[in-house]
């Protein structure tokens, strides 16, 4: 599992743009806000809490093709599965790398964005916690959808139709600053579901 983890992180490092795509996208989604709604401090603070979730959802959704599909299409998935007899270890490794490569950059830019949107320090920590637990759950969800739709080419719209409704509970609770324990619970439930369904999807592929 650690070899796969290392390999996926090196792969992201070699294609260095991976780290910047999602964070740039995230920043751009937020930067559009003042153009649409003006620069009223109170209004921006209110909108910020919601729009960061749209940014996070889209960032995770748009990168889901890279979880399994890229390796499936070029044949590397066969090597990965041959070298790692435990499918569950492969899935956990993919969760970790996907979160590090595509979600961690968002958390790095989050303090700067919060400052720009006049978010108070107390609110920032709660938003940070919400996003952290929410992003974990969302990564679990896209991983199992990615594993289930393995081999289906150019189906990002189909995947979006499956994924977005599953993101809704995270969005509902994510905008409430005190609800990080609920998001943690949702993420734990997503983990259990995702492990089972992802393993089923990968076994279907292997067969």
């Amino acid at each position: 599992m650690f070899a796969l983890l290392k390999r996926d992180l090196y792969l992201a490092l070699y294609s260095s743009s991976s780290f910047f795509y999602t964070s740039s996208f995230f920043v751009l989604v937020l930067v559009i806000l003042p153009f649409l709604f003006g620069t009223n401090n109170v209004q921006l603070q209110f909108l910020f809490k919601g729009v960061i979730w749209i940014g996070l959802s889209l960032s995770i959704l748009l990168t889901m093709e890279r979880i399994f599909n890229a390796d499936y299409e070029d044949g590397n998935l066969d090597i990965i599965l041959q070298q790692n007899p435990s499918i569950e270890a492969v899935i956990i490794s993919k969760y970790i790398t996907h979160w590090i490569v595509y979600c961690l950059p968002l958390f790095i830019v989050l303090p700067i964005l919060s400052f720009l949107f006049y978010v108070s320090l107390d609110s920032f920590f709660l938003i940070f916690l919400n996003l952290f637990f929410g992003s974990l759950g969302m990564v679990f969800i896209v991983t199992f959808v990615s594993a289930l739709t393995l081999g289906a080419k150019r189906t990002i719209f189909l995947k979006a139709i499956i994924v977005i409704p599953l993101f809704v509970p995270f969005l509902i609770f994510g905008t409430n600053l005190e609800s990080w324990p609920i998001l943690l619970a949702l993420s734990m439930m997503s983990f259990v579901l995702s492990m089972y369904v992802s393993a089923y999807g990968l076994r279907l592929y292997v067969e």
Partner: protein
Amino acid sequence: MDELKIEDLTCYRGENLVLKDLNTKIKSGETLVIRGSNGSGKTTLLRVLSNFIKSYNGKVLFNDQNILEDPNYRYFFNFVGQKNSLKDNLSVKNNLKLWEIIYQKNISYSKLLEDFNMSHLVERDVASLSDGQKKCISLLRLNFTESKIWYLDEPFVFLDEENSQTLIQKIKNFNTNNGIVIITSNINLQNTFTNEIKI
């Protein structure tokens, strides 16, 4: 002396019968060529032998042990499929580094690439290579494991005469070192490898 034995192998893909009552065996130092038309089940057979496909009737035995029940079997073979397992957006060197990590083996790239006269391509992006060059690089994966069996799915596709001869020589060297090779092919290789079955 290692031996791979296929006994009464029957395999369905969906509702289609792909392999029916296949029986054969192959010993250390031998190469078996599996010939057949498109869709005849050659790749399916290699995926069964590589333990990717696990639901079939019959048995595949390596040294009299069922491959489905042998947790160490994965260390004994190397499978090079029709996909090249290369990342198009990375250089040849970085692709080799990724294999190095996943196979957990340090290897000298320059010596490897010399086998197919590809040393000058080491810094090139894979996307800029021809299909034949990509195929040669994908075959370098054979050097990343100390396996006893090579499963090669259509390995001569896209290769020119010179690189085909290099590959044939590598296979013969592997046989000399008691390795077993199973190749699928659409083309007639009987002048080179005499052991052949048609499916």
